[in-house]
């Protein structure tokens, strides 16, 4: 990252009549790639693309403040467009002055990053569009291909809207800047998968509508569902029961129950008797518990399947510690707990699947919050030893007796605890995932002294 205001020289780029970024200084190209664009592809920084389009439409040289963002950084800049009057194609030279990057302090940026982590954790994809519903970044759920060639295309050129709702209803919601809920779409090209879109309108710092952020999930009624293909003739339920059939079928209604109960409980739709609001919160809490159970059972089924494998991503355990702590920050704050994470400047490179490692850490920190006294501190540290990178999560809870330390990694083992929202599957799944990634998950504890869980993964050399 650059330091604040240290770019004395303007950053330059050139955009042709089709909106392609045909020339760019390194720093602009970096932003383009970070926003999901490609070298010589359509300009993917929404605010800059808007400015260039307006400049081309008006045929005028514009000069305006622009704010862009990626990951946890905000970039303030002053962008000027210069139309080449002697060029028949009316290409635009982009001159960016006062480029300044700084870590985003605002809550909404933190929320954005956290939303992305939640999406990854749940195996969901995401699409970001500009105000004209053109795709600026796209990541489909799971390992589905797609995302790069779609940049710059209109969303409705990539997906068909599936009845009962139609294009007009979607466009109406967009025109009114309304959230878009439960929109079913089908890919027009490639594998023609079915998806569910949930969209939130984005408003920039100047109060202007700047596009949508969609959460993308595979539709459970997908005719191309591999689980259905795997089924033996005459069987109503496949062996892949939770992962492909019951899981998605249950998640959607449960999600609606939780969302509606939370809306009622928070009295967003109007005043409500106090005890009714409390019942609604209980319903939401029970719904979340059921949803966690469905997720755990899906994972359980997945890891016990013979062909189960994990991806080998290049990950940084310090980064993952921050992300998982961020995901549980609200829950920790509810119990006045502090999650002490390693310094962000540190690095602990390792090899393992990003989403699965995040899942293990969320499980470990979630347990630490659940079983530690209010006001205590949860400490996360990283180390490397004998070619293994390790991350530890230590709590100040009651601890685990030596004779119980193996049992807690068994299926449905709760050590006699109940009513705390756990399913007894989290640690079993986490250990199996750690093993599948070539690592391990162990615990060290004494009664009354808290517990320290250690996840090890193969270490990775930094290039």
């Amino acid at each position, binding site marked *: 990252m650059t330091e604040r205001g240290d770019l004395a020289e303007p950053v330059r780029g050139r955009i042709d009549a089709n909106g392609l970024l045909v020339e760019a200084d390194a720093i602009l190209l970096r932003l383009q790639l970070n926003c999901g664009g490609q070298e010589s592809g359509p300009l993917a920084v929404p605010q800059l693309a808007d400015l260039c389009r307006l400049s081309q439409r*008006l045929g005028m040289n514009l000069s305006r403040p622009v704010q862009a963002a990626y990951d946890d950084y905000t970039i303030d800049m002053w962008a000027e467009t210069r139309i080449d009057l002697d060029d028949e194609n009316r290409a635009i030279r982009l001159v960016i002055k006062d480029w300044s990057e700084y870590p985003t302090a605002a809550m909404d940026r933190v929320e954005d990053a956290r939303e992305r982590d939640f999406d990854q954790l749940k195996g969901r994809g995401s699409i970001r569009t500009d105000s004209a519903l053109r795709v600026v970044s796209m990541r489909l759920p799971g390992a589905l291909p797609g995302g790069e060639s779609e940049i710059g295309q209109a969303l409705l050129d990539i997906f068909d809207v599936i009845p009962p709702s139609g294009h007009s209803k979607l466009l109406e919601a967009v025109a009114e800047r309304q959230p878009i809920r439960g929109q079913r779409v089908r890919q027009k090209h490639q594998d023609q998968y079915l998806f569910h879109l949930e969209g939130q309108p984005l408003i920039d710092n100047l109060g202007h509508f700047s596009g949508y952020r969609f959460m993308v999930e595979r539709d459970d009624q997908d005719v191309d569902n591999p689980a259905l293909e795997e089924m033996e003739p005459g069987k109503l339920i496949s062996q892949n029961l939770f992962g492909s059939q019951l899981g998605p079928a249950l998640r959607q209604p449960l999600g609606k129950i939780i969302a509606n109960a939370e809306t009622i409980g928070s009295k967003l739709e109007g005043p409500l008797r106090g005890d009714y609001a409390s019942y609604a919160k209980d319903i939401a809490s029970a719904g979340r518990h059921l949803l966690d159970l469905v997720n755990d059972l899906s994972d359980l089924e997945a890891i016990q399947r013979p062909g189960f494998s994990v991806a080998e991503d290049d990950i940084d355990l310090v980064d993952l510690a921050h992300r998982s702590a961020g995901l549980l920050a609200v829950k920790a704050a509810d119990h006045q707990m502090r999650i002490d994470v390693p310094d962000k400047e540190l690095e602990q490179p390792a090899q393992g699947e990003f989403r699965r490692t995040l899942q293990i850490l969320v499980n470990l920190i979630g347990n630490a919050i659940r079983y530690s006294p209010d006001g205590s501190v949860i400490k996360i540290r990283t180390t490397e030893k004998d070619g293994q990178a390790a991350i530890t999560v230590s709590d100040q809870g009651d601890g685990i007796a030596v004779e119980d330390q193996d049992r807690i990694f068994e299926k449905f083992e709760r050590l006699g605890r109940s009513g705390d929202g756990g399913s007894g599957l989290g640690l079993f799944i986490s250990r199996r995932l750690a093993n599948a990634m070539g690592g391990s998950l162990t615990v060290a504890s004494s009664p009354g002294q808290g517990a320290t869980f250690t996840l090890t993964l193969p270490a990775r050399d930094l290039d």
Partner: protein
Amino acid sequence: MLKYGQRDMVQRAGDAAAAEAGIASDFAALLFPKSDVRISDRMLSNGRQYLNVLLAEIESHICRIALKLNESENEILIAIEQDRDSQTLPILDKAGLLKKADIAEHLFVQVQAAELAARLLHKTSQDQLEATLTKYLDHDKPAVANAAMGLLVAQSRSLANNSQMAADISDVPAETLFSLVWAVSAGLSQITGMREKELRIVTERMLGEIDESTSITRCSQRLAQLLERDSDDDSFPHPIADGLTLFVARMAHKAALGPDQIIKFTAQPEMAQLVVAMRALDVSSHDAVSIFAALDNGDNILTPATYNGIDRDKAAALLSDWSAPVAFQRAKRLMSEENSDPFAG
């Protein structure tokens, strides 16, 4: 004896007949204004003068390019290029092309800004206002010095002719200027008889030569962005300390509003929206009272008790509403007006 000759009288009677339908709406607008903003005769006169000068500037620019591109010595084009009065104003006015909300809003903002500038000059001198900018010319950061120089140059252009409302084309919002320039171009095709294709090329060339980065609004916005970014100083901008345009730009930046919105706030009775915006931004009562006194025409006084009595949370909620997209605010307002009197005709 009548002021006009017979032919004039016939012409005027014909024009009056065509405009007869507008009499009632003009009268209604004066009798039943939709806002509490007081528009003086001076402001109306300044508005007309500004529009005339602005259109004349556009005409002059188009004709200058046409003469240069075609290496022509067309007398009509030369005359229009040198004329300080607009030739297309009557045609555009008659065709209703100037009765657009964005044009009217730009005129109002310019006129109100001139009012504010005049009020400030009663409290301090032009030299002192300019001196506040020149101090940034020696700023440690070259970008700040460069932006301050840009603003000084832009301001000096608008002050070049003190005798009338100055108009600089680049100060008109690009989207508004675009429609205005093409309307003038169509008007010029009637007056000069230039071929449309030729005029289109000239107009496109003229638009391409406009540089928004030299406008006072953009220069002040850029300087404000740089100053707000680098400032460790907690003090709030002040019209006397910063000059009007920079004060407006800095306050707009802090409030996440447009500079034009801040100018419009100052036109309201007792500058209510400006005061609430300052309260929302947690401006100290001392600063708020001083800013109010600098911008007010002397009829009103803001006391610390009144200012501190404004609920800060409510003020912040209001300010947040005002930063919503204009179309949203307008629709919301219209819907609430409709709901308040469902039987209103």
